């Protein structure tokens, strides 16, 4: 459970409440889809989704980009 909730928060972006909601939706749908179409992949469907999201949005979906401080 703790791992799944971490994945949700990561997908949504740390510190973003709408992000958490959307992340939960994505994770839930991805998992159900995996169970329905390819039960073999159920175990790691969450991680694949997370990896794909992070590849395009390294800070999560709802995180604003921040200037780096020196």
């Amino acid at each position, binding site marked *: 459970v703790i*791992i799944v909730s971490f994945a949700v928060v990561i997908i949504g972006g740390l510190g973003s409440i709408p992000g958490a909601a959307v992340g939960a939706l994505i994770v839930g749908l991805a998992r159900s889809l995996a169970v329905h179409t390819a039960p073999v992949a159920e175990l790691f469907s969450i*991680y694949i989704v*997370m*990896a794909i999201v*992070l*590849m395009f949005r*390294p800070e999560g979906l709802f995180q604003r980009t921040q200037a780096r401080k020196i």
Partner: protein
Amino acid sequence: MSAVPASSLPVSTPARGSSVGRVLALGVACAVALAVGGLFMPKWLTFLITMAAANGLVSLGIVVLMRGGVVPFGQGMVFAVGGYTAALAFNKLGVTDALVLAVMGGVLATLVAAPFAPLLSRYRGIFFAMLTLALSMVTYGLLMKLDVLGGSDGFNIGRPTLFGQSLPDARVGYIIYVLTVLLATAMALLARVYFDSTRGLITLAVRENELRVEYLGGSVRQAMAINFVLAAFSGGVGGALAVMALGHIDPNFSYWTTSGEFVFVAILAGWHSIAAVFVASTVLEVVRSFSSSYFPNTWQLALGLFLLFVIRFLPKGIGSLWVKEHTR
């Protein structure tokens, strides 16, 4: 990379030259003492230390990355890859030499991890941790589903040989123990050399301030990627050694609780000392075996309390007991 001399980095290196010999002598002395001491130890103790040293190698990899400020939560992956490589090479390819198996485990874990290194080097903090976790869980899923690799039950590995000699019943545990201790010492000394090299010091600087390192001409991503690959090698060797000591392998090697234990040891040890990694690993094994024999269902409780105390009183890990702080 050579554009950044070690002296310009925000880490002072007081008289490393004279201490190299001392560290080397200390490491060799420890290894010899353990190897000779093993003759007089009961079997459970040599087995415990064997497992502690093998797991310590994986945690050593985590410490290599921790020095750069990231914590991988998926070192179970390289542990499993190393273990499965050794076991499969033994069963399918007929390679039986323990030393060759250990090196093969390390090399294959490196090859598996290397393609991900440039990708992962972009991420920091929890993102890095979760992505490495994702890798290890995908590996776990694959190992569970592939019946060729034994599925969820895993499979057994026979008794290895060493330098062409078959190992007799009575001595096999001891010989694997000595091999593991010696390999762990060699890896620890190599890690020390790496930590004191220019690149190793750049890793420390990355931890302090990434942007400054880049302005000074160092590549943060390159340093991170190389650390990840080195950590994979160390973890693979550890996995191969662990599987030879256990005689069995199953997908749990790659499960996140296994990875969690390695992180636990690395945090316990802190990133200041390499010897602390092996001390912490031994402590974990001792606490686990004693508390699981005395309070079978609550050994995690004992472990958790222990970690709480260490974090409360030694926030920089066990290593801070004997390593003085050079950095801020």
